Protein backbone atom coordinates (compact mmCIF):
# COMPACT_ATOMS: atom_id res chain seq x y z
CA UNK A 1 0.00 0.00 0.00
CA UNK A 2 1.35 3.39 -1.03
CA UNK A 3 0.45 6.78 0.42
CA UNK A 4 0.58 10.05 -1.48
CA UNK A 5 0.23 13.53 -0.02
CA UNK A 6 -1.81 15.51 -2.53
CA UNK A 7 -1.52 18.84 -0.72
CA UNK A 8 -1.05 21.70 -3.19
CA UNK A 9 -0.37 19.32 -6.08
CA UNK A 10 -1.92 20.33 -9.41
CA UNK A 11 -4.38 17.85 -10.82
CA UNK A 12 -1.96 17.06 -13.64
CA UNK A 13 0.88 16.22 -11.25
CA UNK A 14 -1.36 14.22 -8.94
CA UNK A 15 -2.84 12.16 -11.76
CA UNK A 16 0.62 11.57 -13.24
CA UNK A 17 1.79 10.18 -9.87
CA UNK A 18 -1.29 8.00 -9.56
CA UNK A 19 -0.91 6.57 -13.04
CA UNK A 20 2.79 5.94 -12.62
CA UNK A 21 2.23 4.09 -9.34
CA UNK A 22 -0.58 2.00 -10.82
CA UNK A 23 1.43 1.24 -13.95
CA UNK A 24 4.21 -0.03 -11.71
CA UNK A 25 1.92 -2.56 -10.07
CA UNK A 26 0.61 -0.64 -7.04
CA UNK A 27 -2.65 -2.31 -6.01
CA UNK A 28 -3.70 -0.01 -3.22
CA UNK A 29 -3.09 3.71 -2.99
CA UNK A 30 -4.06 6.17 -0.26
CA UNK A 31 -4.35 9.84 -1.24
CA UNK A 32 -4.16 12.30 1.63
CA UNK A 33 -5.13 16.00 1.67
CA UNK A 34 -6.91 15.94 -1.65
CA UNK A 35 -8.66 19.25 -2.28
CA UNK A 36 -10.30 20.03 -5.59
CA UNK A 37 -7.94 18.09 -7.89
CA UNK A 38 -9.99 17.04 -10.88
CA UNK A 39 -10.13 13.84 -12.93
CA UNK A 40 -8.83 11.46 -10.25
CA UNK A 41 -9.03 7.94 -11.68
CA UNK A 42 -10.19 9.32 -15.00
CA UNK A 43 -9.79 6.87 -17.85
CA UNK A 44 -7.81 4.45 -15.70
CA UNK A 45 -8.25 0.73 -16.37
CA UNK A 46 -7.50 -1.99 -13.83
CA UNK A 47 -8.54 -3.47 -10.51
CA UNK A 48 -6.53 -1.32 -8.07
CA UNK A 49 -8.06 0.50 -5.13
CA UNK A 50 -7.76 4.22 -4.36
CA UNK A 51 -8.61 5.69 -0.99
CA UNK A 52 -9.19 9.46 -1.03
CA UNK A 53 -9.12 11.67 2.05
CA UNK A 54 -10.45 15.17 1.40
CA UNK A 55 -12.61 16.62 -1.35
CA UNK A 56 -11.76 15.30 -4.84
CA UNK A 57 -12.46 17.74 -7.66
CA UNK A 58 -14.90 17.51 -10.54
CA UNK A 59 -15.13 14.44 -12.76
CA UNK A 60 -13.83 11.96 -10.23
CA UNK A 61 -13.70 8.52 -11.90
CA UNK A 62 -14.70 9.93 -15.28
CA UNK A 63 -14.40 7.25 -17.99
CA UNK A 64 -12.97 4.98 -15.31
CA UNK A 65 -12.72 1.31 -16.17
CA UNK A 66 -12.52 -1.00 -13.18
CA UNK A 67 -10.91 0.76 -10.19
CA UNK A 68 -12.45 0.88 -6.75
CA UNK A 69 -12.38 4.39 -5.28
CA UNK A 70 -13.44 5.13 -1.72
CA UNK A 71 -13.81 8.78 -0.71
CA UNK A 72 -13.73 9.87 2.93
CA UNK A 73 -15.24 13.30 2.39
CA UNK A 74 -17.60 15.00 -0.03
CA UNK A 75 -17.23 14.74 -3.79
CA UNK A 76 -17.96 17.51 -6.30
CA UNK A 77 -19.71 17.62 -9.69
CA UNK A 78 -19.66 14.88 -12.29
CA UNK A 79 -18.63 11.81 -10.26
CA UNK A 80 -18.42 8.81 -12.60
CA UNK A 81 -18.95 10.86 -15.76
CA UNK A 82 -19.19 8.27 -18.59
CA UNK A 83 -17.71 5.65 -16.26
CA UNK A 84 -17.43 2.20 -17.81
CA UNK A 85 -16.69 -0.12 -14.89
CA UNK A 86 -15.57 -0.14 -11.26
CA UNK A 87 -16.96 1.08 -7.95
CA UNK A 88 -17.03 4.52 -6.31
CA UNK A 89 -17.93 4.68 -2.61
CA UNK A 90 -18.45 8.16 -1.16
CA UNK A 91 -18.82 8.60 2.60
CA UNK A 92 -20.11 12.17 2.23
CA UNK A 93 -22.22 13.96 -0.39
CA UNK A 94 -21.89 14.26 -4.13
CA UNK A 95 -23.11 17.32 -6.06
CA UNK A 96 -24.65 17.74 -9.52
CA UNK A 97 -24.64 15.31 -12.45
CA UNK A 98 -23.23 12.31 -10.56
CA UNK A 99 -23.22 9.38 -12.99
CA UNK A 100 -23.52 11.60 -16.05
CA UNK A 101 -23.72 9.27 -19.11
CA UNK A 102 -22.50 6.41 -16.95
CA UNK A 103 -22.47 3.12 -18.83
CA UNK A 104 -21.26 0.59 -16.28
CA UNK A 105 -20.00 0.15 -12.74
CA UNK A 106 -21.47 1.27 -9.44
CA UNK A 107 -21.56 4.48 -7.36
CA UNK A 108 -22.57 4.44 -3.68
CA UNK A 109 -23.14 7.79 -1.96
CA UNK A 110 -23.76 7.76 1.78
CA UNK A 111 -25.06 11.32 2.01
CA UNK A 112 -27.07 13.49 -0.38
CA UNK A 113 -26.68 14.07 -4.10
CA UNK A 114 -27.25 17.20 -6.19
CA UNK A 115 -29.25 17.93 -9.32
CA UNK A 116 -29.49 15.68 -12.40
CA UNK A 117 -28.09 12.47 -10.93
CA UNK A 118 -27.88 9.77 -13.59
CA UNK A 119 -28.52 12.14 -16.48
CA UNK A 120 -28.16 10.25 -19.79
CA UNK A 121 -27.17 7.05 -18.00
CA UNK A 122 -27.36 4.05 -20.30
CA UNK A 123 -27.13 0.24 -20.35
CA UNK A 124 -26.30 -2.36 -22.96
CA UNK A 125 -26.60 -6.12 -22.46
CA UNK A 126 -24.35 -6.99 -19.49
CA UNK A 127 -23.29 -3.37 -18.85
CA UNK A 128 -25.75 -2.08 -16.24
CA UNK A 129 -24.70 0.98 -14.25
CA UNK A 130 -26.01 1.46 -10.71
CA UNK A 131 -26.15 4.50 -8.41
CA UNK A 132 -27.30 4.24 -4.80
CA UNK A 133 -27.86 7.38 -2.71
CA UNK A 134 -28.30 7.18 1.05
CA UNK A 135 -29.88 10.60 1.58
CA UNK A 136 -31.88 12.80 -0.77
CA UNK A 137 -31.41 13.93 -4.35
CA UNK A 138 -32.06 17.21 -6.16
CA UNK A 139 -34.26 18.08 -9.14
CA UNK A 140 -34.16 16.18 -12.45
CA UNK A 141 -33.22 12.87 -10.85
CA UNK A 142 -32.66 10.42 -13.74
CA UNK A 143 -33.09 13.08 -16.43
CA UNK A 144 -33.03 11.62 -19.98
CA UNK A 145 -32.08 8.32 -18.41
CA UNK A 146 -31.76 5.57 -21.01
CA UNK A 147 -30.73 2.57 -18.91
CA UNK A 148 -29.35 1.33 -15.62
CA UNK A 149 -30.64 1.64 -12.07
CA UNK A 150 -30.99 4.51 -9.58
CA UNK A 151 -31.80 3.73 -5.95
CA UNK A 152 -32.70 6.55 -3.54
CA UNK A 153 -32.96 5.66 0.14
CA UNK A 154 -33.84 8.89 1.98
CA UNK A 155 -32.10 7.95 5.21
CA UNK A 156 -31.81 10.61 7.93
CA UNK A 157 -34.33 13.01 6.36
CA UNK A 158 -35.40 15.91 8.55
CA UNK A 159 -39.13 16.30 9.18
CA UNK A 160 -40.72 17.95 6.16
CA UNK A 161 -37.68 17.34 3.97
CA UNK A 162 -38.45 15.82 0.56
CA UNK A 163 -36.51 12.74 -0.54
CA UNK A 164 -36.24 14.01 -4.10
CA UNK A 165 -36.61 17.28 -6.03
CA UNK A 166 -38.96 18.16 -8.87
CA UNK A 167 -39.09 16.73 -12.39
CA UNK A 168 -37.93 13.19 -11.57
CA UNK A 169 -37.21 11.22 -14.72
CA UNK A 170 -37.93 14.04 -17.16
CA UNK A 171 -37.19 12.67 -20.63
CA UNK A 172 -36.48 9.22 -19.22
CA UNK A 173 -36.81 6.45 -21.80
CA UNK A 174 -35.04 3.44 -20.29
CA UNK A 175 -33.78 2.00 -17.02
CA UNK A 176 -35.47 2.08 -13.63
CA UNK A 177 -35.58 4.23 -10.51
CA UNK A 178 -36.32 2.90 -7.03
CA UNK A 179 -37.28 5.39 -4.34
CA UNK A 180 -37.78 4.25 -0.79
CA UNK A 181 -41.28 5.13 0.43
CA UNK A 182 -44.01 6.96 -1.46
CA UNK A 183 -43.36 9.72 -3.97
CA UNK A 184 -46.01 12.34 -4.55
CA UNK A 185 -46.91 12.35 -8.25
CA UNK A 186 -46.22 16.09 -8.33
CA UNK A 187 -42.48 15.35 -8.23
CA UNK A 188 -42.57 13.13 -11.31
CA UNK A 189 -41.72 14.27 -14.80
CA UNK A 190 -44.23 13.65 -17.56
CA UNK A 191 -42.36 10.66 -18.97
CA UNK A 192 -42.41 8.33 -15.94
CA UNK A 193 -44.99 6.28 -14.09
CA UNK A 194 -44.88 4.65 -10.65
CA UNK A 195 -45.39 0.89 -10.42
CA UNK A 196 -44.99 -1.58 -7.53
CA UNK A 197 -41.65 -3.44 -7.62
CA UNK A 198 -41.84 -7.09 -8.75
CA UNK A 199 -40.57 -10.04 -6.70
CA UNK A 200 -37.42 -10.06 -8.86
CA UNK A 201 -36.95 -6.32 -8.13
CA UNK A 202 -37.26 -7.01 -4.40
CA UNK A 203 -34.59 -9.68 -4.67
CA UNK A 204 -32.23 -7.31 -6.47
CA UNK A 205 -32.93 -4.50 -4.00
CA UNK A 206 -31.93 -6.86 -1.16
CA UNK A 207 -28.59 -7.37 -2.85
CA UNK A 208 -28.04 -3.68 -3.67
CA UNK A 209 -29.05 -2.40 -0.24
CA UNK A 210 -26.99 -5.22 1.30
CA UNK A 211 -23.89 -3.90 -0.47
CA UNK A 212 -24.71 -0.32 0.49
CA UNK A 213 -25.16 -1.27 4.16
CA UNK A 214 -21.89 -3.19 4.14
CA UNK A 215 -19.90 -0.26 2.71
CA UNK A 216 -21.29 2.18 5.26
CA UNK A 217 -21.79 -0.10 8.23
CA UNK A 218 -25.60 0.13 8.34
CA UNK A 219 -28.37 -2.39 8.91
CA UNK A 220 -29.83 -3.51 5.59
CA UNK A 221 -32.97 -5.01 7.16
CA UNK A 222 -33.92 -1.68 8.67
CA UNK A 223 -33.54 0.05 5.33
CA UNK A 224 -35.48 -2.65 3.50
CA UNK A 225 -38.33 -2.59 6.01
CA UNK A 226 -39.87 0.32 4.14
CA UNK A 227 -41.35 -0.53 0.71
CA UNK A 228 -39.95 1.03 -2.47
CA UNK A 229 -41.68 2.82 -5.31
CA UNK A 230 -40.46 1.86 -8.76
CA UNK A 231 -40.45 4.40 -11.59
CA UNK A 232 -40.25 3.37 -15.21
CA UNK A 233 -40.66 5.34 -18.43
CA UNK A 234 -43.95 5.27 -20.29
CA UNK A 235 -42.18 4.52 -23.54
CA UNK A 236 -38.83 4.36 -25.25
CA UNK A 237 -39.20 7.43 -27.43
CA UNK A 238 -40.90 10.13 -25.36
CA UNK A 239 -40.17 12.84 -27.89
CA UNK A 240 -40.61 10.68 -31.00
CA UNK A 241 -43.67 12.62 -32.12
CA UNK A 242 -42.66 16.03 -30.78
CA UNK A 243 -41.98 17.54 -34.20
CA UNK A 244 -44.06 15.13 -36.30
CA UNK A 245 -47.44 16.35 -37.47
Amino acid sequence: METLNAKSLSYQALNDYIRTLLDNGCRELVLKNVNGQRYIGAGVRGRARLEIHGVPGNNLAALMDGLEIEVFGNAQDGVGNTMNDGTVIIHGNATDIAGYSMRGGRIFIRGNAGYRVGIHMKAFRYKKPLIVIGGKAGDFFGEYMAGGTLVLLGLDLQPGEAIVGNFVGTGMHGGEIFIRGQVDSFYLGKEVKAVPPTAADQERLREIVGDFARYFDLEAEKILARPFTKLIPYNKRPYGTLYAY
Partner: protein
Amino acid sequence: MLREGDYRVPSGCAISGFINKDGRRVDGSAIIQSIALMQERSNGLGGGFAAYGIYPEYKDYYALHLLFEDKLSRNLVEELIKDNFYIEAEDRIPTRHVRSIGKAPLLWRYFVTPRLSKIEESKETEADFMTRLVMRINDSVNGAYVVSSGKNMGAFKGVGYPEDIGEFFRLDEYQAYTWIAHGRFPTNTPGWWGGAHPFTLLDWSVVHNGEISSYGANRRFLEMYGYKMTLQTDTEVVAYAIDLLVRRHKLPLELAARVLAAPLWQVIDRLPAAERDLYTRLRVVYGSLLLNGPFSIIVGFSGGLMALNDRIKLRPLVAAFHGATLYVASEEAAIREICPDVERVWYPQGGEPVIGRLEEESQCRLSA
Protein backbone atom coordinates in the same frame (compact mmCIF):
# COMPACT_ATOMS: atom_id res chain seq x y z
CA MET B 1 -10.53 45.19 -31.94
CA LEU B 2 -13.88 43.59 -31.30
CA ARG B 3 -14.98 43.80 -27.71
CA GLU B 4 -17.04 41.68 -25.39
CA GLY B 5 -20.56 41.24 -26.64
CA ASP B 6 -19.59 41.35 -30.29
CA TYR B 7 -19.06 37.63 -29.78
CA ARG B 8 -20.95 34.98 -27.89
CA VAL B 9 -19.28 34.17 -24.58
CA PRO B 10 -19.75 30.59 -23.41
CA SER B 11 -18.31 30.81 -19.95
CA GLY B 12 -17.19 28.35 -17.30
CA CYS B 13 -16.13 30.86 -14.72
CA ALA B 14 -15.26 30.56 -11.04
CA ILE B 15 -16.84 32.56 -8.24
CA SER B 16 -16.03 32.73 -4.55
CA GLY B 17 -16.88 35.02 -1.67
CA PHE B 18 -17.18 35.30 2.06
CA ILE B 19 -18.47 37.64 4.74
CA ASN B 20 -17.29 37.90 8.32
CA LYS B 21 -20.61 38.66 9.97
CA ASP B 22 -18.86 39.83 13.11
CA GLY B 23 -17.31 42.64 11.04
CA ARG B 24 -13.78 41.28 11.37
CA ARG B 25 -11.72 42.66 8.51
CA VAL B 26 -9.14 40.47 6.78
CA ASP B 27 -6.73 41.14 3.95
CA GLY B 28 -7.16 39.85 0.41
CA SER B 29 -4.83 36.87 0.61
CA ALA B 30 -7.54 34.36 1.62
CA ILE B 31 -9.91 35.25 -1.22
CA ILE B 32 -7.02 35.09 -3.69
CA GLN B 33 -6.11 31.63 -2.40
CA SER B 34 -9.72 30.49 -2.73
CA ILE B 35 -10.29 31.71 -6.28
CA ALA B 36 -6.84 30.48 -7.37
CA LEU B 37 -7.77 26.92 -6.41
CA MET B 38 -10.33 26.92 -9.22
CA GLN B 39 -7.81 28.03 -11.85
CA GLU B 40 -9.11 25.46 -14.36
CA ARG B 41 -12.38 27.39 -14.42
CA SER B 42 -10.62 30.53 -15.73
CA ASN B 43 -8.38 31.10 -18.74
CA GLY B 44 -6.47 34.24 -17.86
CA LEU B 45 -8.74 36.64 -19.72
CA GLY B 46 -10.39 38.19 -16.69
CA GLY B 47 -10.21 38.30 -12.93
CA GLY B 48 -11.66 40.62 -10.36
CA PHE B 49 -12.60 41.32 -6.78
CA ALA B 50 -14.90 43.47 -4.71
CA ALA B 51 -14.07 44.34 -1.11
CA TYR B 52 -16.24 45.99 1.56
CA GLY B 53 -14.98 47.97 4.52
CA ILE B 54 -11.66 48.90 2.91
CA TYR B 55 -11.81 52.69 3.19
CA PRO B 56 -12.82 53.47 6.79
CA GLU B 57 -10.94 56.78 6.67
CA TYR B 58 -13.11 57.89 3.72
CA LYS B 59 -16.28 55.98 4.57
CA ASP B 60 -18.58 58.97 4.04
CA TYR B 61 -17.30 59.62 0.53
CA TYR B 62 -18.14 57.78 -2.66
CA ALA B 63 -15.03 55.91 -3.72
CA LEU B 64 -14.93 56.22 -7.50
CA HIS B 65 -12.63 53.61 -9.04
CA LEU B 66 -12.03 54.57 -12.65
CA LEU B 67 -10.39 53.05 -15.67
CA PHE B 68 -9.05 55.30 -18.43
CA GLU B 69 -7.77 54.10 -21.75
CA ASP B 70 -5.90 57.37 -22.33
CA LYS B 71 -5.09 60.74 -20.78
CA LEU B 72 -7.77 62.56 -22.73
CA SER B 73 -10.54 60.46 -21.21
CA ARG B 74 -9.07 61.10 -17.77
CA ASN B 75 -9.07 64.85 -18.32
CA LEU B 76 -12.68 64.78 -19.52
CA VAL B 77 -13.83 62.75 -16.52
CA GLU B 78 -11.89 64.86 -14.04
CA GLU B 79 -13.60 67.94 -15.43
CA LEU B 80 -16.96 66.28 -15.01
CA ILE B 81 -16.12 65.24 -11.46
CA LYS B 82 -14.88 68.70 -10.48
CA ASP B 83 -18.10 70.25 -11.80
CA ASN B 84 -20.30 67.96 -9.78
CA PHE B 85 -18.34 66.92 -6.70
CA TYR B 86 -16.19 68.02 -3.88
CA ILE B 87 -13.05 65.85 -4.06
CA GLU B 88 -11.68 64.84 -0.68
CA ALA B 89 -8.77 62.81 -2.07
CA GLU B 90 -7.54 61.42 -5.37
CA ASP B 91 -4.82 58.99 -6.21
CA ARG B 92 -3.61 56.41 -8.64
CA ILE B 93 -4.83 52.99 -7.52
CA PRO B 94 -1.64 51.37 -6.17
CA THR B 95 -0.45 48.44 -8.26
CA ARG B 96 2.67 46.33 -8.42
CA HIS B 97 4.37 44.84 -11.42
CA VAL B 98 3.18 41.33 -12.26
CA ARG B 99 4.78 39.64 -15.24
CA SER B 100 1.66 37.94 -16.55
CA ILE B 101 -0.40 41.13 -16.56
CA GLY B 102 -0.15 43.02 -19.83
CA LYS B 103 -0.43 46.73 -20.39
CA ALA B 104 -2.97 48.10 -17.94
CA PRO B 105 -5.17 51.13 -18.53
CA LEU B 106 -4.77 54.16 -16.24
CA LEU B 107 -6.37 53.28 -12.90
CA TRP B 108 -7.45 56.09 -10.61
CA ARG B 109 -9.62 56.56 -7.59
CA TYR B 110 -11.41 59.64 -6.27
CA PHE B 111 -13.12 60.04 -2.91
CA VAL B 112 -15.95 62.43 -3.59
CA THR B 113 -19.15 63.90 -2.28
CA PRO B 114 -21.72 65.50 -4.61
CA ARG B 115 -22.05 69.29 -4.50
CA LEU B 116 -25.31 70.18 -2.74
CA SER B 117 -26.13 72.82 -5.34
CA LYS B 118 -25.84 70.23 -8.09
CA ILE B 119 -28.16 67.79 -6.34
CA GLU B 120 -30.70 70.53 -5.69
CA GLU B 121 -30.52 71.58 -9.31
CA SER B 122 -31.16 68.01 -10.45
CA LYS B 123 -34.07 67.45 -8.03
CA GLU B 124 -32.89 63.89 -7.55
CA THR B 125 -31.86 61.83 -4.56
CA GLU B 126 -28.13 61.66 -3.97
CA ALA B 127 -28.04 58.00 -5.05
CA ASP B 128 -29.94 58.75 -8.28
CA PHE B 129 -27.59 61.64 -8.95
CA MET B 130 -24.62 59.29 -8.50
CA THR B 131 -26.19 56.63 -10.73
CA ARG B 132 -26.77 59.14 -13.49
CA LEU B 133 -23.18 60.32 -13.28
CA VAL B 134 -21.86 56.75 -13.53
CA MET B 135 -24.06 56.11 -16.55
CA ARG B 136 -22.92 59.37 -18.12
CA ILE B 137 -19.21 58.57 -17.77
CA ASN B 138 -19.64 55.04 -19.11
CA ASP B 139 -21.87 56.14 -21.94
CA SER B 140 -20.43 59.41 -23.15
CA VAL B 141 -16.72 59.61 -22.29
CA ASN B 142 -14.86 57.50 -24.79
CA GLY B 143 -12.35 55.20 -23.08
CA ALA B 144 -13.43 55.94 -19.50
CA TYR B 145 -15.31 53.44 -17.36
CA VAL B 146 -16.42 53.43 -13.75
CA VAL B 147 -15.15 50.28 -12.07
CA SER B 148 -16.97 50.98 -8.81
CA SER B 149 -18.81 53.84 -7.16
CA GLY B 150 -19.89 52.81 -3.65
CA LYS B 151 -18.91 53.99 -0.19
CA ASN B 152 -16.26 52.20 1.83
CA MET B 153 -15.93 49.57 -0.90
CA GLY B 154 -14.10 49.06 -4.15
CA ALA B 155 -13.82 46.78 -7.15
CA PHE B 156 -10.49 45.71 -8.63
CA LYS B 157 -10.54 43.96 -11.97
CA GLY B 158 -8.62 43.38 -15.14
CA VAL B 159 -7.34 40.98 -17.76
CA GLY B 160 -5.41 38.09 -16.22
CA TYR B 161 -5.88 35.19 -13.88
CA PRO B 162 -7.62 36.36 -10.70
CA GLU B 163 -4.66 35.52 -8.47
CA ASP B 164 -2.41 37.68 -10.66
CA ILE B 165 -4.96 40.50 -10.71
CA GLY B 166 -5.09 40.29 -6.89
CA GLU B 167 -1.31 40.53 -6.74
CA PHE B 168 -1.30 43.40 -9.24
CA PHE B 169 -3.77 45.42 -7.17
CA ARG B 170 -1.90 44.64 -3.90
CA LEU B 171 -5.04 43.24 -2.29
CA ASP B 172 -2.94 41.90 0.58
CA GLU B 173 -2.78 45.54 1.71
CA TYR B 174 -6.56 46.03 2.06
CA GLN B 175 -8.73 44.94 4.99
CA ALA B 176 -12.34 43.99 4.28
CA TYR B 177 -15.20 42.20 6.04
CA THR B 178 -16.59 40.95 2.71
CA TRP B 179 -14.57 39.76 -0.27
CA ILE B 180 -15.98 38.42 -3.51
CA ALA B 181 -13.97 37.18 -6.48
CA HIS B 182 -14.28 36.03 -10.04
CA GLY B 183 -12.12 34.07 -12.49
CA ARG B 184 -13.21 34.41 -16.06
CA PHE B 185 -13.30 32.00 -19.01
CA PRO B 186 -14.39 33.88 -22.14
CA THR B 187 -13.22 31.37 -24.71
CA ASN B 188 -13.70 33.24 -27.96
CA THR B 189 -13.53 36.93 -27.27
CA PRO B 190 -10.70 39.30 -26.44
CA GLY B 191 -11.17 40.09 -22.76
CA TRP B 192 -10.89 43.73 -21.80
CA TRP B 193 -10.44 45.44 -18.47
CA GLY B 194 -13.93 46.89 -18.29
CA GLY B 195 -15.49 43.56 -19.24
CA ALA B 196 -14.00 41.67 -16.29
CA HIS B 197 -16.20 40.99 -13.25
CA PRO B 198 -17.41 42.30 -10.82
CA PHE B 199 -19.98 44.62 -12.35
CA THR B 200 -20.99 47.34 -9.95
CA LEU B 201 -23.23 50.28 -9.26
CA LEU B 202 -23.12 52.28 -6.02
CA ASP B 203 -22.60 49.67 -3.27
CA TRP B 204 -23.69 46.73 -5.44
CA SER B 205 -21.19 44.36 -7.01
CA VAL B 206 -21.95 41.20 -8.95
CA VAL B 207 -19.78 38.28 -10.04
CA HIS B 208 -21.34 35.68 -12.27
CA ASN B 209 -20.75 32.26 -13.75
CA GLY B 210 -23.01 31.50 -16.69
CA GLU B 211 -24.93 33.22 -19.42
CA ILE B 212 -27.89 35.57 -19.22
CA SER B 213 -29.86 34.48 -22.29
CA SER B 214 -32.54 37.07 -21.49
CA TYR B 215 -30.01 39.95 -21.70
CA GLY B 216 -31.95 41.72 -24.48
CA ALA B 217 -35.28 41.65 -22.63
CA ASN B 218 -33.66 42.65 -19.32
CA ARG B 219 -31.76 45.46 -20.98
CA ARG B 220 -34.84 46.95 -22.66
CA PHE B 221 -36.69 46.92 -19.34
CA LEU B 222 -33.82 48.56 -17.45
CA GLU B 223 -33.32 51.22 -20.13
CA MET B 224 -36.84 52.47 -19.40
CA TYR B 225 -35.59 53.33 -15.90
CA GLY B 226 -32.57 55.25 -17.13
CA TYR B 227 -29.91 52.55 -16.90
CA LYS B 228 -27.46 52.41 -19.78
CA MET B 229 -25.79 49.14 -20.70
CA THR B 230 -22.32 50.16 -21.86
CA LEU B 231 -19.98 47.38 -20.80
CA GLN B 232 -21.28 44.85 -23.34
CA THR B 233 -21.36 41.91 -20.96
CA ASP B 234 -24.54 40.18 -19.82
CA THR B 235 -23.71 40.41 -16.11
CA GLU B 236 -24.08 44.19 -16.19
CA VAL B 237 -27.90 43.83 -16.21
CA VAL B 238 -27.83 41.92 -12.92
CA ALA B 239 -26.20 44.79 -11.03
CA TYR B 240 -28.69 47.32 -12.39
CA ALA B 241 -31.68 45.02 -11.89
CA ILE B 242 -30.83 44.62 -8.21
CA ASP B 243 -30.31 48.36 -7.84
CA LEU B 244 -33.76 48.98 -9.37
CA LEU B 245 -35.54 46.34 -7.32
CA VAL B 246 -33.93 46.88 -3.93
CA ARG B 247 -32.78 50.50 -3.79
CA ARG B 248 -35.41 52.19 -5.94
CA HIS B 249 -38.43 49.91 -5.62
CA LYS B 250 -37.63 48.91 -2.03
CA LEU B 251 -38.12 45.16 -2.42
CA PRO B 252 -36.45 43.06 0.25
CA LEU B 253 -33.40 41.31 -1.19
CA GLU B 254 -35.06 37.92 -0.62
CA LEU B 255 -37.91 38.92 -2.93
CA ALA B 256 -35.58 40.50 -5.49
CA ALA B 257 -33.96 37.05 -5.72
CA ARG B 258 -37.40 35.61 -6.54
CA VAL B 259 -37.71 38.10 -9.38
CA LEU B 260 -34.33 37.24 -10.90
CA ALA B 261 -34.88 33.48 -10.41
CA ALA B 262 -38.67 33.35 -10.35
CA PRO B 263 -40.27 30.11 -9.18
CA LEU B 264 -41.72 28.09 -12.07
CA TRP B 265 -45.48 28.48 -12.55
CA GLN B 266 -46.13 24.88 -11.56
CA VAL B 267 -44.30 25.51 -8.28
CA ILE B 268 -46.27 28.73 -7.72
CA ASP B 269 -49.53 26.82 -8.32
CA ARG B 270 -48.83 24.63 -5.29
CA LEU B 271 -48.08 27.46 -2.83
CA PRO B 272 -50.51 28.64 -0.12
CA ALA B 273 -52.86 31.37 -1.39
CA ALA B 274 -51.02 34.42 0.00
CA GLU B 275 -47.65 33.35 -1.37
CA ARG B 276 -49.19 32.28 -4.66
CA ASP B 277 -50.65 35.74 -4.98
CA LEU B 278 -47.35 37.44 -4.13
CA TYR B 279 -45.23 35.41 -6.56
CA THR B 280 -47.84 35.76 -9.29
CA ARG B 281 -47.77 39.54 -8.88
CA LEU B 282 -43.96 39.60 -8.90
CA ARG B 283 -43.85 37.63 -12.13
CA VAL B 284 -46.48 39.84 -13.74
CA VAL B 285 -44.84 43.15 -12.76
CA TYR B 286 -41.20 42.12 -13.15
CA GLY B 287 -41.43 39.40 -15.81
CA SER B 288 -38.84 41.29 -17.86
CA LEU B 289 -36.26 41.06 -15.07
CA LEU B 290 -36.37 37.26 -14.93
CA LEU B 291 -32.84 36.09 -15.70
CA ASN B 292 -33.11 33.24 -18.15
CA GLY B 293 -30.25 30.87 -18.75
CA PRO B 294 -27.69 29.23 -16.50
CA PHE B 295 -26.17 31.31 -13.73
CA SER B 296 -24.68 31.33 -10.31
CA ILE B 297 -23.97 34.79 -8.93
CA ILE B 298 -22.60 36.43 -5.81
CA VAL B 299 -23.90 39.90 -5.04
CA GLY B 300 -21.93 42.07 -2.66
CA PHE B 301 -23.49 45.08 -0.92
CA SER B 302 -22.79 47.29 2.02
CA GLY B 303 -23.17 45.05 5.07
CA GLY B 304 -23.79 41.76 3.30
CA LEU B 305 -23.62 39.34 0.43
CA MET B 306 -26.06 37.13 -1.45
CA ALA B 307 -25.46 34.04 -3.58
CA LEU B 308 -28.08 32.83 -6.03
CA ASN B 309 -28.52 30.13 -8.67
CA ASP B 310 -30.82 30.00 -11.66
CA ARG B 311 -34.00 28.13 -10.77
CA ILE B 312 -32.99 24.82 -12.30
CA LYS B 313 -29.41 25.02 -11.05
CA LEU B 314 -27.43 24.89 -14.25
CA ARG B 315 -24.28 26.21 -12.57
CA PRO B 316 -22.56 25.01 -9.38
CA LEU B 317 -22.91 26.74 -6.02
CA VAL B 318 -21.82 25.57 -2.58
CA ALA B 319 -22.28 27.37 0.74
CA ALA B 320 -20.66 26.81 4.12
CA PHE B 321 -20.27 28.49 7.43
CA HIS B 322 -17.68 28.45 10.14
CA GLY B 323 -17.98 30.62 13.24
CA ALA B 324 -19.21 34.02 12.12
CA THR B 325 -18.11 33.55 8.50
CA LEU B 326 -20.37 32.58 5.60
CA TYR B 327 -18.62 31.18 2.51
CA VAL B 328 -20.04 30.70 -0.99
CA ALA B 329 -18.19 29.35 -4.03
CA SER B 330 -18.46 27.38 -7.25
CA GLU B 331 -16.70 24.43 -5.61
CA GLU B 332 -16.47 23.12 -2.06
CA ALA B 333 -12.71 22.74 -2.43
CA ALA B 334 -12.38 26.52 -2.87
CA ILE B 335 -13.93 26.98 0.57
CA ARG B 336 -11.94 24.19 2.23
CA GLU B 337 -8.75 25.67 0.82
CA ILE B 338 -9.13 28.63 3.20
CA CYS B 339 -11.20 26.95 5.92
CA PRO B 340 -10.41 23.21 5.99
CA ASP B 341 -12.74 22.30 8.85
CA VAL B 342 -15.92 24.22 8.02
CA GLU B 343 -18.75 23.48 10.44
CA ARG B 344 -21.41 22.95 7.81
CA VAL B 345 -21.48 22.64 4.02
CA TRP B 346 -24.69 22.81 2.02
CA TYR B 347 -25.86 23.05 -1.56
CA PRO B 348 -28.42 25.81 -2.16
CA GLN B 349 -31.31 24.82 -4.41
CA GLY B 350 -31.95 26.57 -7.70
CA GLY B 351 -33.53 29.96 -7.04
CA GLU B 352 -32.92 29.78 -3.29
CA PRO B 353 -30.89 32.80 -2.16
CA VAL B 354 -28.15 32.46 0.46
CA ILE B 355 -27.81 35.75 2.31
CA GLY B 356 -25.27 36.80 4.93
CA ARG B 357 -25.43 40.11 6.73
CA LEU B 358 -23.25 41.85 9.28
CA GLU B 359 -24.55 41.44 12.80
CA GLU B 360 -26.25 44.60 13.97
CA GLU B 361 -23.58 45.44 16.51
CA SER B 362 -20.73 45.15 13.99
CA GLN B 363 -22.77 47.07 11.41
CA CYS B 364 -22.93 49.98 13.89
CA ARG B 365 -19.28 49.71 14.79
CA LEU B 366 -18.16 49.79 11.15
CA SER B 367 -20.30 52.77 10.25
CA ALA B 368 -19.58 54.73 13.44
